[in-house]
């Protein structure tokens, strides 16, 4: 049964959370993502599915409520925007260290500091390189449409439980606030079984006690635990790379962009093609794991790569690593809350083609 609705990205996240069978949401208001909590409160998911929704006293409390619920094997999520996500980093590090599954949504706004409430993609480093303290990674999904805001909630929970790892949906103020048609997936049942190997649900006689913790004071055991985490991240790199290509087959010049920048860049590719430039767009959907091999292969094919990101240039570092010097890679970005227009992207692409740089 196809159920179509016109929704904001933030509303799609909230509706998808209920439909994905989430057990709980803990959050704190911050622009531009407050609609997630508002929608959930208005929708009364306790009546619909028994899902808990609680407005916490801070982002710090919210992520630690997530930790508690996740430790018991429940399907739990939180959402915030950049400054709030910074506050959550300690908790996210603990969740990654304790190997608990959960979903985190960042509707990115401009920074640094309090910055602005306008859209940005300047949290790429924080999202893909760990974010908090210690050696850990989040599995990062970057939606480019309201449809994907909905779809990635379901996918995100699946991946979080598959790897017992926090999954981050890295969105931005454009995708969070804009309205689009969404085809909603059908209501999924909430989980009723909890893995006795690790979930903290009360110790029955027949098993040893379970402890959700990231602490081990013995450095050799802690190192072993880190090996296990690294093996998990490697498995993600082998199995979970997701991306989308647009006009890449015969491309001589490549734009790499994710999220709303990919939408803008797709238009720029169309404008370039109209002018006879053989341009293509490569859109990473997973930012960690990053599609290294695919970009490496395209780097052998094209004459130049333009990284487009609403930042001062963060993802370009991963593209350069993947391209390994095979081809010139340049960055184009507007930032601090400014959204680039397609003709600006085209201009930057033409500058790259002409051998110039900004």
């Amino acid at each position, binding site marked *: 049964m196809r159920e179509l609705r016109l929704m904001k990205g933030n509303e799609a996240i909230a509706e998808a959370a209920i439909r994905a069978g989430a057990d*709980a949401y803990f959050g704190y208001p911050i622009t531009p993502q407050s609609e997630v909590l508002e929608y959930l409160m208005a929708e009364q998911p306790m009546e619909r599915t028994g899902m808990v929704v609680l407005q916490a006293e801070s982002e710090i409390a*919210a992520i630690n409520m997530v*930790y*508690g619920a996740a430790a018991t094997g429940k399907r739990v999520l939180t959402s915030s925007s950049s400054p709030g996500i910074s506050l959550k980093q300690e908790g996210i590090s603990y969740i990654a260290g304790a190997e608990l599954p959960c979903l985190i949504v960042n509707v990115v706004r401009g920074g640094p500091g309090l910055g602005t409430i306008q859209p940005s993609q300047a949290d790429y480093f924080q999202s893909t390189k760990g974010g908090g303290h210690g050696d850990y990674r989040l599995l990062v999904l970057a939606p480019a449409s309201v449809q994907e805001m909905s779809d990635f909630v379901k996918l995100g929970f699946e991946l979080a439980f598959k790897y017992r790892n926090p999954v981050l949906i890295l969105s931005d103020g454009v995708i969070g606030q804009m309205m689009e048609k969404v085809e909603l997936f059908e209501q999924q049942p909430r989980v009723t079984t909890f893995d006795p190997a690790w979930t903290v649900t009360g*110790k029955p006689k027949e098993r040893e*006690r379970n402890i*959700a*913790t990231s602490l081990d004071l013995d450095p050799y055991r802690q190192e072993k635990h880190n090996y296990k985490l690294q093996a998990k991240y490697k498995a993600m790199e082998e199995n979970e790379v997701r991306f989308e290509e647009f006009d890449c087959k015969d491309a001589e010049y490549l734009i790499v962009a994710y999220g709303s920048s990919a939408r803008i860049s797709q238009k720029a590719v169309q404008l370039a093609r109209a002018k006879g430039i053989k341009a293509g767009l490569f859109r990473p959907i997973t930012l960690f794991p990053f599609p290294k091999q695919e970009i490496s292969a395209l780097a052998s094919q094209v004459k130049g790569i333009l990284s487009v990101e609403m930042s001062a240039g963060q993802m370009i570092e991963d593209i350069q690593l993947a391209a390994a010097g095979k081809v010139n890679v340049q960055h184009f970005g507007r930032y601090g809350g400014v959204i680039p227009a397609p003709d600006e992207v085209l201009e930057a692409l033409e500058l790259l083609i002409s051998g110039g740089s900004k």
Partner: protein
Amino acid sequence: MNLKDIIKPENLVYSKTPLLTDNVMSYCPGCSHGTAHRIIMEVIEEMGIQSETIGVAPVGCSVLAYDFMNIDMAQAAHGRAPAVATGIKRCWPEKYVFTYQGDGDLAAIGTAETIHACNRGENIMIVFINNGIYGMTGGQMAPTTLPGMKSSTSPFGRDVATMGNPIKMTDLVAQLPGTYYVTRQAVHKPVNVRRTKKAIRIALENQKLNKGLSFIEIVSSCNSGWKMTPVQANIWMEENMIPFYPLGDLKVDGELVKK
């Protein structure tokens, strides 16, 4: 009569609860943690709720609690145990959930989480070990360190003019409508151990009724942090800590106790 004649079931007067693990207690001799751990586990055993109980231990000496408590536990970040417990309890309202926190954890870095969990009336038990010092990190000044009391970060004694006053969290949370039972106890003498154990029983029984949060402060000694022998520490605690943090119920059945 030899030892074999003595060790017989009919002569058994006391045994360690199986809800404490066989791990050797790593707490300093004289520390109150061991007794506090034991009586919590005894109450859980007596109520037969091991399989229904989830404990939360955060950072500080209490981070080691799960080495000794033979129940399912979640370790929390420093100060965040009430938030972690909230996440668990909201998802499992039928389970018994408690936190076990020290003074630095509960009354300094975790003040917001403590106040708000109390104010929301989360149906959990908070056990608050107040020994007026940071034990795990080696004896630094805590939010509950007494005026004039020496610590490694107040080597000339706590100067309240520059370092602030000790905070009476138990008095503070008793004022909040979300707390149902608030009491301050100790475990340095058998009579106090019995009273504290009774308080833990009341707190866990309260969880069944969904009446709100139960908050039990245990005024404790940290002889290592205080640089005293265990006996000296207990005497010092009685002469200095308890006059400042007087023992007794502050709130019972949701009503403030009139003094």
